[in-house]
């Protein structure tokens, strides 16, 4: 009976969360001219998806987004894990360093985008996916560092002590003990990093060119002076959701069961 309330609450939350994306799904499947119709399904068409790929080169941007988001996580996560570990375990740099790292993310992107453009231009990295990956890695780093720091603080220090007396280097203890024990945190941080890059708009806008734009840029371009092509936007949104839904099947293994300790008393 107690479970009933639980499921009721969760289902309610799911419904609230799901209604807008569902309406977007519905809109993506009706002709643009009927997108604002109050009927549930006035007509069915796949034109919006077709148009998105054929006319708006959505396929390219989709792949770009995947590369950039994955790439930035792959780059940022290890760096963030190491820095977060140093902050959590060795208190490196004290409170100052922690807050300084975080503070780099406190400026609105608007203030950073021109200078960032300038240095990337200098390095010949504008208009290229590696450039975007680099920038996103740096943008993600502070957040991921902090999140992982929070998780690492929960790992009993004696586990590393045990590993180090067992002959592991500090690195070995980190890699073989702390990392596996912190999988929930790493999974969460990874998803977060992916999503931040997946959705980032301003840097993508300024730093990308016609070949290297990402999904948010391409969807934003659908707001034209002739009106918003909302059906196509909806189609884009529906497609943009897919990777996370697929990925969450794997991620939740870590986030959901976590690890039960039993190693220390």
């Amino acid at each position, binding site marked *: 009976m107690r479970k009933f309330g639980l499921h009721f609450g969760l289902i309610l939350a799911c419904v609230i969360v799901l209604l807008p994306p569902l309406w977007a799904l519905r809109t993506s499947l009706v002709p643009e001219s009927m997108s604002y119709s109050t009927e549930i399904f006035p007509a069915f068409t796949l034109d919006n998806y077709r148009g998105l790929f054929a006319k708006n080169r959505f396929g390219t941007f989709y792949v770009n987004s995947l590369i950039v988001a994955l790439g930035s996580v792959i780059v940022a996560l290890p760096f963030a894990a190491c820095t977060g570990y140093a902050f959590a375990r060795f208190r490196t740099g004290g409170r100052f360093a922690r807050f300084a790292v975080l503070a780099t993310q406190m400026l609105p992107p608007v203030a950073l985008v021109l200078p960032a453009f300038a240095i990337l231009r200098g390095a010949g990295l504008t208009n290229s996916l590696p450039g975007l990956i680099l920038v996103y890695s740096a943008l993600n780093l502070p957040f991921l560092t902090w999140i992982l720091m929070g998780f690492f603080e929960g790992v009993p220090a004696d586990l590393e002590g045990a590993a180090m*007396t067992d002959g592991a280097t500090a690195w070995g203890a980190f890699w073989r003990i702390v990392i596996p024990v912190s999988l929930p945190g790493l999974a969460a941080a990874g998803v977060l990093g992916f999503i931040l890059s997946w959705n980032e708009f301003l840097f993508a806008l300024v730093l990308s060119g016609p070949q290297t734009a990402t999904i948010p840029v391409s969807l934003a371009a659908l707001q034209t002076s002739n009106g918003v092509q909302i059906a196509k936007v909806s189609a884009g949104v529906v497609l943009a959701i897919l990777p996370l839904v697929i990925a969450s099947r794997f991620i939740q293994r870590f986030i959901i069961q976590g*690890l039960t300790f039993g*190693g220390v008393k």
Partner: protein
Amino acid sequence: MASIELERVSRRFANGTYGVRDIDLKIEDGEFVIFLGPSGCGKSTTLRMIAGLESISSGDLRIGGRSVNNVAPRDRNVAVVFQNYALYPHMSVWHNMAFGLKMRGVGLEEIDQKVAKAADLLGLNLLLQRKPGALSGGQRQRVALGRAIVREPEAFLLDEPLSNLDAQLRAEMRLELVKLHRRLGRTMVHVTHDQVEAMTMGDRICIMRDGQMIQTGRPLDVYANPADIFVARFLATPPMNLIPAQLTHADDKLVVQIDPTTHVGVPPKHYAPYVQKAGGPITAGIRAEDIYETQARPEWQRISVKVVAVEALGAENVLIGLLGRDKPIEIQARLGRHFFAPVDSIVDLYVDTEPMHLFDTETGKAVARPPLPAGR
């Protein structure tokens, strides 16, 4: 070479308290040393400093003659059994034990062999695939022990490694550890609260209190010649009976006068060291096992004790009784398993006074006398 030397080593914690203060200790290469002391006295802290897991606030720690204050744990090549086990929660028992070997680059085959052997020894064969979360307390402790013994480090640091094992297993493990020590000849430091472990396993016993080292020596030496009341009481169960008394000197006899009607005489051969204390207060220390129910030797001295309780432990009975009449003092005596006496009855017991100690009542220090031979 893995002698371990501590020179005025202290550990001050973040909150300002000292875990250990100005400890001096030299452990020879290959020595088996027991750390003993009340809860919270700094045993684990000392061990962890030796392992390099606790930073040293001041003083100098040397292993094999080399100062290691800033040497990484892995480069000290010690194996540790943590008091809280510190098992790797995400690894199976096998991997927990194999980890140290893997880290040292031992070949897989050899690892397999060694782990299998240790598991055998510890009765963990059937549990090798389990994760620590699915083990009982004692099983976890055995894994922790196994993790240390599969390796052949310069030194073993064992922090109460047998505390959660049943008596039988504990006895076996005790034996195995001693064998291991004989076989490898490596330095071993063993923290324990177990009387038997303390007395039988080590070459030397170090008694700690409040972060300081009180007395070290061969176990039976320390047992026979405690430096002070604390050591005397601590190193025995039931603890030594401490009886406040007056040391009187009359008729050429040195007598411990407990109350007007109760006294025991000092054996004549100890007159010389003790006579200086005559005429003043003294604390007499009589071990529970020096009190007998029958007078087997003539020099044993009779005392009358009012029975408070008789605890039957199966193999022996411990009598708890009151000595003296005005201000009766509770004493305990280890008697045979057949001994019995009703509560409140008065029984006559006989004290072997030869191993009796006299302590300065004020300082608690033992009044110096030539050391008794061990085993007394």
